[in-house]
């Protein structure tokens, strides 16, 4: 544990960068400020053609600020842009437009070398623990890589760090010489978490970290993530399609539909009273593990439209049970009502 709590050492790079780049004073509570984040993937009509014929609007103007030590959950269905948002925040995919400020540092303005150094602050845990660990590397090699890349430490210290990382995530240090295939899904995800923790990051994007796991294992990993957050003061962006998991882990929840944030609210309030018609439908669609649960389900018709050709006005109007003429014509903005935000003409 002791080796993990040395923030000064690894954050040096960050603090120096911050001094040079923070133009405006930032709210000390806010760790990450995202403004109008956009990622469009061009569609080319002909192969090798330079002229894009259009764009898939994977993320289309997402703004949110993430407070220090909080967990912000992002939910939505396949193709809503939640994973792309997570990746764009870390610049694992290059955003098309927008602003991302990490404690005042404009991440989009960093050059590749600065970005590489800055990544010690921000890490990611991926969905599929089978695909995100190199099958030819032992767990020791997997955990060593970030340490060797970013820090100059001796062999002895390196081994101590790896042992303590393994213990932190509930694995025995003795397992470090094994290969990923020798572990179960839950243990592999622990390795993925240990790798993300290796450089003492402050912010972790977790992209569906428990979706590939069985329920009994899922709860072990969720508990672990919550413990680590408390011990190490981490801030999470937790991306998931599973509403009950998001409810468990998050302080605030953002709901995405077709690349846009349609609602953002503190978890308890969101689940007590969803405002956006899409959030309502999404919540009512989740099967409850209770045979006597009341089911006034809102069944949405049809599929999510293509993000290459989103509907006019409010993107949800094609499936919305309460859509009006105005929704077809005019795009609702994400407006603030008290401590929550919603993008719907119903509340204007």
């Amino acid at each position, binding site marked *: 544990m002791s080796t993990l709590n040395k923030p000064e050492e690894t954050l040096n790079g960050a603090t120096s960068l911050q001094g040079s780049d923070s133009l405006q004073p930032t709210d000390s509570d806010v760790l990450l400020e995202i403004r109008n984040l956009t990622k469009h993937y061009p569609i080319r009509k002909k192969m090798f053609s330079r002229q894009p014929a259009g764009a898939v609007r994977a993320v289309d103007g997402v703004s949110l600020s993430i407070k220090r030590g909080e967990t912000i959950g992002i939910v939505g269905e396949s193709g809503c842009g939640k994973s792309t948002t997570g990746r764009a925040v870390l610049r694992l995919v290059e955003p098309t437009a927008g602003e991302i400020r990490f404690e005042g540092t404009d991440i989009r303005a960093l050059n590749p070398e600065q970005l590489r150094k800055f990544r010690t602050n921000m890490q990611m845990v991926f969905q599929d623990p089978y695909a995100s660990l190199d099958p030819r590397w032992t767990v020791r090699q997997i955990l060593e890589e970030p340490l060797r890349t970013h820090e100059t430490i001796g062999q002895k210290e390196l081994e101590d760090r790896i042992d303590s990382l393994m213990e932190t995530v509930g694995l025995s240090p003795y397992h470090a010489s094994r290969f990923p295939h020798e572990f179960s899904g839950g243990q592999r995800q622990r390795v993925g978490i240990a790798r993300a923790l290796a450089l003492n990051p402050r912010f972790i994007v977790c992209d569906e970290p428990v979706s590939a796991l069985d329920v*009994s*294992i899922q709860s072990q990993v969720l508990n672990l993530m919550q413990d680590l957050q408390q011990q190490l003061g981490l801030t999470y962006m937790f991306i998931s399609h599973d509403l009950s998991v998001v409810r468990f882990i998050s302080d605030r929840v953002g709901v995405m539909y077709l690349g846009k944030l349609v609602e953002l609210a503190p978890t308890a309030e969101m689940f007590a009273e969803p405002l956006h018609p899409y959030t309502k439908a*999404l919540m009512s*669609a989740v099967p409850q593990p209770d045979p006597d649960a009341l089911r006034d389900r809102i069944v949405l018709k049809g599929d999510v439209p293509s993000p290459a050709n989103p509907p006019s006005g409010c993107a949800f109007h094609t499936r919305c049970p309460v859509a009006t003429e105005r929704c077809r014509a005019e795009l609702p903005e994400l407006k603030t009502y008290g401590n929550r935000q919603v993008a719907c003409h119903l509340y204007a």
Partner: protein
Amino acid sequence: MTAELLEVSGLRTEFVTGGGVIRAVDGIDLKISRGETLGIVGESGCGKSITSLSIMQLLPKKIGRIAAGEIRFKGEDLVRKSARDIRRVRGNRMAMIFQEPMTSLNPVIRIGRQVAESARYHLKIGRKEAELLSIEMLRKVGISRPEQIVKQYPHELSGGMRQRVMIAMAMVCKPELLIADEPTTALDVTIQAQILDLMRELQQEEGTAILMITHDLGVVAEMCDRVVVMYAGQVVEETDVRTLFRSPQHPYTQGLLDSLPQLSEGRERLASIPGQVPNPLELPPGCRFAPRCPVKMRQCEESAPELLSTESGHQCRCFLRQMEKEAVGS
């Protein structure tokens, strides 16, 4: 003829692997009556999918085999039937839908032909008639513009549409038993709700019995009449759906239900089951759940408990419940 549509008794399915023989399913009994929905729940590797493949006689030929047991469908034992006789039943009187609608549809054959294939084979109808039938089936599963969809290929459809096509394919001969192996796991929740609704509607219309295999306890609560809980190749508990959620008896079922994060509850620490599912090549000598069980006794590590049932038909494989019962009895 018995009242049961399907009766599986003592089913044991084995796989021959490099490391030895794996008993993926180890002595399972199941009963499904007409029009009923039976759920099988359990985690990865518990044998629930292998059970369904055994019933359909779709085990991989070279490595998998049914080592013992009977599978009686309408009184006739499928295990002892010839491949030809099985083909008369499969796709006709019983049909199956799979988890991944992309990989279980043929990518190079048009939707219309795939939907009507089993009808052409079993009902001996012509091509024209088959096309009309597939259009009718697609309309029935809620696909708009079926006349155009029959001419399309699977990749042109969304995941939800493909799963509707799978259901249309399975229902085309009006089977008496539909086996659904994780039918909505690959789908988004709003699409899942549509598909579950559709399955319920079709069941009411046609009186089909459904064997629902899933890991999602929410889907079980919503769809099933009775539930079988499997662990490491065995049934550990069986009861009606209400009793399962109200008063689960087996410590594994209890752990499973406790570890669910609930949509209707606040944020606290989740209960979890320590450890993991045992390696099928190194099963514990006593109760298979003993290494992870919070209430295990010495007896549990030494001998294996039997699946015993109470008067109400609630079955449970646990020494603790047996002791309680004996204490009440004496």
